[in-house]
Structures are given as C-alpha cells and as structure tokens.
C-alpha cells in the first residue's frame, strides 16, 4: 500500500518541481529513443544495402556470363573477356582453411590454460599481451610476413616437408620462393588467434564454478574436468569464437596479399602460390576503368565474398541454435 501511494506522490513532486521542464524531459526521452532507433535501423540495413549496390554494379557480368562459368571456370583473362573466379575462390578457401587449422588448436589450449590453469597473476600479465596482438595493423603483419614468414617457409619448411612427406601431393612443391598458401595461412593464423583466444577465454571463464567443483570433488583431474565438463558446457561459445576468427581470416586482405604469391591458378599443394578473392579486388581495383566489364567483374568478386561470409554466419547461427537447445 505504502509503495502505491508513494510512487504517484513522487511523480507529482517531480512534476511540480520541474514543471516548465517536464515536457522537454519527455520530448527529449522520446526524441533520443527515436534517434537511436533510426541509427540502429540504419546499421542493420547496411549489409543488405551494400549487397544490393554490389549486385547492381555487378549485373552486367551476370547478364553476360552464366553463373556456372563465373564460379567454375579456371581461366582468368579479362582482356580477352574470360572471367573465371574458380582459382580465386579456391585461393580464399585454401588460405582460410590452413589458417584455421593452424590457429584453432593452439588458441583453444591457450584459452584453457588462461582460464583453468594460470594463476591470476600470470593471467594478468599474459592476457593484455595477447590482446595487443589483435590491435596490430594488418599491413604490419604483411611486412612481417614478407620479411620472416616467407623466407622461413621457402628455406626451411618447404624443403623439410617435401623431403619427408613429399609422397603426399599436399606437400609437394616446385615453388622454392616461399610466397605460398602456407605463408598466407601462417600470417593469417597469427592474426586470428588473439580473437579466438580472447573470446574463448571469456567463454571458459563464464562456465559456473560449481560445475568444476562438482567434477573435482568426484576425484577428476583438472584436465578431466576441462575435457568433460568445461569444454562441453562452453562448446557453443567456442564455435562462436571460431566463426568470428574465420570471418576475420576470410576477409583479410593486405597481410595475405603480401605473402601469398598472387598467381591465379587452382592450387594443389600448400606450397603453391594462391590468389584469394580479397587480393584480386585490392590488386586490380585501380585498373577497373580501362578494360570493359572489369569493374563489374571485381564487384562481382566482392559480391561473392560477401555472400560466402553471410552464408557461413548463417550456418554458424543455426549450429549454435541447435547446440544451445540440446544442452
């Protein structure tokens, strides 16, 4: 009772006190809400807007060439009118897959160490250093890749793996330069790991302490606990972290472009040079005006890139949804 009386009283008092401003307060509130709503709507509409613009600009090439030819033809020779994106799509997939294979296991183990094993003091020192990695500009990674990763791959890893595992086509090479998919994958892997580490550490830390205690009380070791309790509970979050890293790797341009070799061919080995879609756009954007259809071809490449990222995001959302339901 007392409360019910109190609230109107409070409101009345406010009205009386701020009477000349009472209206402006409310107007302000409504206005602020509207403005923020419009801004959010705009942000949400940006991706469809970009997609529509890319599509309209890419339309000349869609109407001139069948989609299957664009996606699956291996010849890229714009001057003679051949626009096959297959080598570039393959290049993107190879580089991204290599980077994810290299980045996911160490990143997850690091995250487990930071959340489960490390003392708070160690964590306080290591975490900011890893976060710092995420802030390094990609062109810096590119220069670093050219100076160290490329020679490392060319002079050390390629001869070693070819000698020992050369019977597997994946490790055969006739490219001694080091500018290769593996170099691109290594640089990308380093770039995406801080993202995966940061996010999965958060996810692991969010697992309720009680679960761990229950497991440990049953006599399980810490590793058992991680494997059977923490990791299981954190799985949807880990997948989200991996997808975020994947999207970053997929769209990364400058660092990859500087180490990957940029040869438009379908790769068959991790030591082959490749040519990702992003690099194609960045390398040739300047020449768009001079060759007929070139601009719509490049915008088509951008459209394909956007679509692939959207599809991957959608799939990961669906997987997440199922996982969270089943837990």
């Amino acid at each position, binding site marked *: 009772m007392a409360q019910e009386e109190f609230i109107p009283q409070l409101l009345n008092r406010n009205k009386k006190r701020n009477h000349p401003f009472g209206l402006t307060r409310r107007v302000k509130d409504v206005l602020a809400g509207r403005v923020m709503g419009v801004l959010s709507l705009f942000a949400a509409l940006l991706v469809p807007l970009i997609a529509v613009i890319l599509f309209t600009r890419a339309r000349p090439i869609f109407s001139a060439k069948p989609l299957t030819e664009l996606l699956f033809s291996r010849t890229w020779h714009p001057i003679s009118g051949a626009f096959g994106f297959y080598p570039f799509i393959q290049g993107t997939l190879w580089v991204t897959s290599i980077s994810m294979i290299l980045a996911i296991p160490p990143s997850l183990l690091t995250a487990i160490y930071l959340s489960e094993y490390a003392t708070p003091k160690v964590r306080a020192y290591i975490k900011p250093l890893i976060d710092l990695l995420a802030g390094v500009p990609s062109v810096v990674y590119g220069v670093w890749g050219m100076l160290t990763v490329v020679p490392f791959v060319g002079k050390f890893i390629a001869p070693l793996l070819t000698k020992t595992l050369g019977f597997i086509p994946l490790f055969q090479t006739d490219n001694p330069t080091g500018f290769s998919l593996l170099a691109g994958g290594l640089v990308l892997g380093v770039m995406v790991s801080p993202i995966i580490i940061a996010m999965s550490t958060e996810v692991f830390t969010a697992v309720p302490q009680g679960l761990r205690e229950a497991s440990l009380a049953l006599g399980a070791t810490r590793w058992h606990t991680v494997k059977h309790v923490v990791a299981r509970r954190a799985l949807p979050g880990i997948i989200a972290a991996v997808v975020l890293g994947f999207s970053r790797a997929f769209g990364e341009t400058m660092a990859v472009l500087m180490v990957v070799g940029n*040869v438009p061919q379908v790769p068959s080995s991790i030591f082959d040079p490749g040519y990702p879609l992003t690099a194609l756009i960045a390398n040739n954007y300047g020449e768009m005006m001079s060759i007929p259809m070139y601009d719509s071809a490049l915008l088509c490449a951008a459209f394909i890139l956007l679509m692939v990222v959207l599809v991957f995001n959608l799939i990961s959302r669906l997987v997440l949804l199922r996982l969270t339901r089943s837990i």
Partner: protein
Amino acid sequence: MKKCKPLSILLVISSLMAGCASSSEMESIDSNPQQTITISGAWALYPMMVRWAEEFHTTYPQVEFDISAGGAGKGMVDALAGAVDIGMVSRKIYQEEIEKGAFWVSVTRDAVFVTVNELNPVLDELRSQGISQETLVGIYITGEITTWGQVVGQLEIQDPVNVYTRSDAAGAPATFAEYLGKNQEDLLGIGVYGDPGVLDAVIKDPLGIGYNNLTYAFDASSGKPVQGAFVVPLDVNANGIMDPEEWFETKGQAVQAVAGGYYPAPPARDLNLVTLGKPTGVVRDFIEWVLTDGQGYVNEVGYIGLSREQLQMELTKIE
C-alpha cells in the same frame, strides 16, 4: 622560437615578392585568393610531384596541394571520376580512357629495369651479355626458359629461374608487359605487392629475377644499384654482347641511356598528368609551370627530363 621569427618574415616577404614578379603570366592564381589542387595516382611520380608542389607553393603561397599516392590506376579512376584535379599516371593512356574524357600531358620520363640478385650464378655472363627481349619473353610470357643456364646459353647450368612480377595493377608492370608484347595479366611469376616488394624478393633470392622502376632499382645517394641487387642492361640488338651504348652500371649512366634513346621505350615511358577534359584555371597554370620552371628540379630529384621539342609539344596541348 625567437630566432625563427625574422627568418619566417623574410620567407613570407620573399615569397610575396616572387608571387608579384610573375603575376602577369598567371592571372587565374591571383584572381582567386586561396586554392587547393588535389592530386592522386602513381607511386612512380609521387616524389617528383611532392617536390614540384613544394616549389610551386613557395612561389605561389595561396595555392595549397593535397597529394596522395595509390597507383596509376587509382590516379586515372580518381581523375575521371572528378575526385581529384590531377591524376598521376605512369603508363600510356588507353583508348577507353580517352573516350571517357581523359586529357593528358607528359611531364617526365621513367624506365623499368630488369633486376637480379648480386649472387646470381651467371652474374658475369649477364654483365657481359645483357639480357635480350626474346629471353625475357621466354621467361615472363611463354615460360620456356626455366634455368639460368638457358638465359646465358650455357645449358649445363641447371639453377632454376625464380620469376617475380608485380601483383598490383600499375604502370611498371603494364609497361614491362608492353615491351614483351603482352598485358600485365600475361606475365608469369610470383606476384609480389609493390615496387619495393619485388625488389625485396629479388634481393632475398639468389635465383630471382624481377623488374623495377629507376628510383627503386638504383640507390638514391650512391647512384649504384640497391645493395644486394644487380641491374641487368638490355641487349637491345640481340647480338649476345654488351655494346658500349647499351651498357650502363650506375643511375647516371642509366638516365643517359634512357634520355639518349639507347634504352628502348617501352620499357622507358612517359609519366603523365591526367585531367578530366582540358585543364583550366589554376590547374592549367600549375601544369604549365611544371612543363617550364618545374623542369629545373627533374634531374635533381632523380627523374629523366623530356626533350625540349617534346616539352614544347606538351605546352601547345594545354594552350
């Protein structure tokens, strides 16, 4: 700070006086008090343009410059889109671009040089024979030449040729490909980003071959090829020997070979300023200044000047 004041006053006065001195020629500069010329485009022309802008600004302080580099293609796209007043384009202008309204004036020359590592296994032979157009076609276009032994005609040498090319669309690869009778997309080899990138790859790889612009192939202070690289002269008449007029080793000699016409064009080429339609007003005045007074700085910055006749011809284009 106190010491600076008289100096800066002096500078202002002198620049004012300089402005007055030639005010009769450049009417459009004086009629507008404050103007900005925006420029973008080729890396090959960027250092020269910065110097020109500085000198022009000292003479006409009311004209400001906004210069950015980003490749010949960007310069062309920006100029045609009206995003900048002047585009720097380090290759020839294509027919499609002329149809879209590109107007251009050549202002200096540059050339692309073949570079190899200084530890190359056949360096002595390259020094005495040079490299012919046919050999370059075999390396860069058909891919028939794969060992350094084939390059110098000693088939017992089996070291492979590691071919590097530019990944980004730019003036240098376009001109080099034109020399070999093709387009940039026909050039074989590992694509490396940017002029310094190709040079770096060649310096790191004893079996590498690449191509670079004059300012990148030669060290600016010493005039010799950049440490670790060797610039291979072209065997223009393909007789298998370095003739005296084909030979060069330092930047000065290379510049003379280009200016004297002994070094073929392409790979030598004119560097152009592109505007959308014929330039007017202060932009026209600036281009005119570049073709006249501005030419005085060309050699100093390390570029190759145009011949007197060609400068005259370019001047009549903007009349």
